[in-house]
């Protein structure tokens, strides 16, 4: 038990991911207010992006772009991959954010249309008005 807690404390980012993910999931599934459901959804998606950034982070590394000043190093194959961060997780992050924003746009449009039609954002209230 104690070693699990210690292992968790050494990886605070992963603990934060789990908390954010479960929190978002909980709000999304249980909250009756439609906009708060969306906030939960956003939290859940953001936690996954946070995990992507976490696994992509690397200490004492720089952007993987070789500049003119590095020409000599390139010529002699002295470029050490360990000095550069892997760009792929960051690219995935950007794409995931774009998808997230598009989803949020569509969902807000739907919520706005629901509000116009039923005059409420509360799920139980809307279901009552349908009947």
């Amino acid at each position, binding site marked *: 038990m104690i070693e699990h807690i210690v292992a968790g404390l050494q990886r605070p980012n992963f603990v934060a991911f789990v908390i954010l*993910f479960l929190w978002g*999931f909980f709000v*999304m599934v249980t909250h009756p207010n*439609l906009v708060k*459901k969306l906030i939960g*959804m956003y939290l*859940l*998606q953001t936690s*996954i992006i946070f*995990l*992507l950034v976490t*696994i992509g982070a690397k200490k004492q590394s720089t952007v993987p772009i070789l500049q003119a000043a590095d020409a000599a190093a390139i010529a002699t194959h002295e470029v050490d991959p360990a000095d550069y961060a892997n760009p*792929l*997780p960051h690219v*995935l992050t950007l*794409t*995931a954010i774009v*998808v997230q924003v*598009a*989803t949020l746009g*569509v*969902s807000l*449009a*739907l*919520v706005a*249309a*629901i509000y116009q*039609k039923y005059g409420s954002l509360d799920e139980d209230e*809307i279901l009552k008005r*349908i009947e």
Partner: protein
Amino acid sequence: MSYPLPVIIFLIPFLTAICLPMVGLKKRHWCRPLALIAVCAMCVAAVVNLLEVLAHGETRYAFGGWPISTSFPAASIGVEWVNDPLASVMLVVLSSLASVCLIYSGPVSPQSLGSRVVLYYTLILMLISGLTGIVLAGDIFNVFVFMEVAALSAYALVGIPGGRALIVAFRYLILGTLGASFYLLGVVFFYAATGTLNMADLAQQLADKPELMTSKAVIAGTTFMFIGFGIKMALFPLHGWLPGAYTRAPDAISPLLAALMTKVALYGWVRIMFWVLGAGAEIGQIHVLSLLGVLGAFAAVVGALLALSQQDVKRMFAYGGISHVGLILIGVSQGNQTAFAGSLFYLINDAVMQAGLFFIAGSAIYHHKAQTVDDLASLRGGSPWMIGGLIVLALSMIGIPPTGGFFGKWHIILGAIEAHNYWAVAAVIIATILTMAYFQKLFVRIFRDTHLPSDVERIETHPSIRFSVAVTSIAIILLGVCSDPIIRFFRDIAVSAGM
């Protein structure tokens, strides 16, 4: 020089979708013909592509010329599209069904759209191109992106009629996004464990390092991916979004969604299951395939039971679709060539059958305002086209020999016997009997009910509805008649998947 036809197939609907709003600004009535031409062109290109693949074998397209899985020894860092026999067959099915759905949608499309009709066709084309992307994608992150492209269009399309459809669309959005998020989480775990997203590369790494398969990251990744796909393919306990969405969606859209959305998600899972994880994959101590078989058996039986208890015709067919997803999973999970070939064949049949059934349900609403099973009695006075189509499709759903449904189920049962899974055989047979029961309910209403006046006025069925119902009915019989070569073709695919 890569072979570019698959990319062209994707670009036809995608570029048309981008151009439509510009054209529609001035000439609104051009949208439908343009969309129809685009999808028909896509269909022709897909057939050419299938013939090409059958003649010359699979091709892979590397975007931007970056090294991909075939350019060994360079590491695969590029985005890759795989155009193998399975993908090319799926492309033909997808594009032909999409064009039939688009022909059908003409008279049935919502009338109140006004200027939004431009966006309506844009969304349909976006949906089709998203599904094409899932079929072709050769790396797991691209599958996620295209899954969202298709799903976002589907949410908007479901919500078109307004009112209760909005609520259903919102529920679909919440659950669909949850599924996509789980899938993305699975992708992150796979990437963290292996450092690659390319499917072929992943499969290579998992085969080379057996200790990866037992690592927690890969186990978690597999589980999350499966839950994600499970929501997208409406596997029984995760099917909550499907019946409402298909019932409330515009009558012109539900055939398209019913025929393609769940089937393409199922195809995506088959791809990851057999081309990445391998047929013998285990999570923890549990064999993934046997778990799939149990879940599929539950879905097949419970889906059919729920269908039997429905009064709304569209809702009944939607539950029938859930039951068939279970049947296909049973076949996939037997782990031998017979059942695998049978279930892929059944997947195609199911796509055609679902499209046809929703054509009939939609046109019953369009011509006779018949929404529930009780209203269907009015079909009797209606067109022989619809009754005839319904009979052929029902025979196939139940599984009576001249139709395609029989041969799919037959091979699934044969494969299950070969694998000594007698409970799977029992599940297929129980699902079949229940399917028979709910079609019985429909036909009793149509033919035996004497309470309603029999002199319902004859309504001339719209030609495009007649055409689409006829095409699906003939296709299902043709699939049955030509089942032998198709099943042999799928057996070859099963061999290439390592069975």
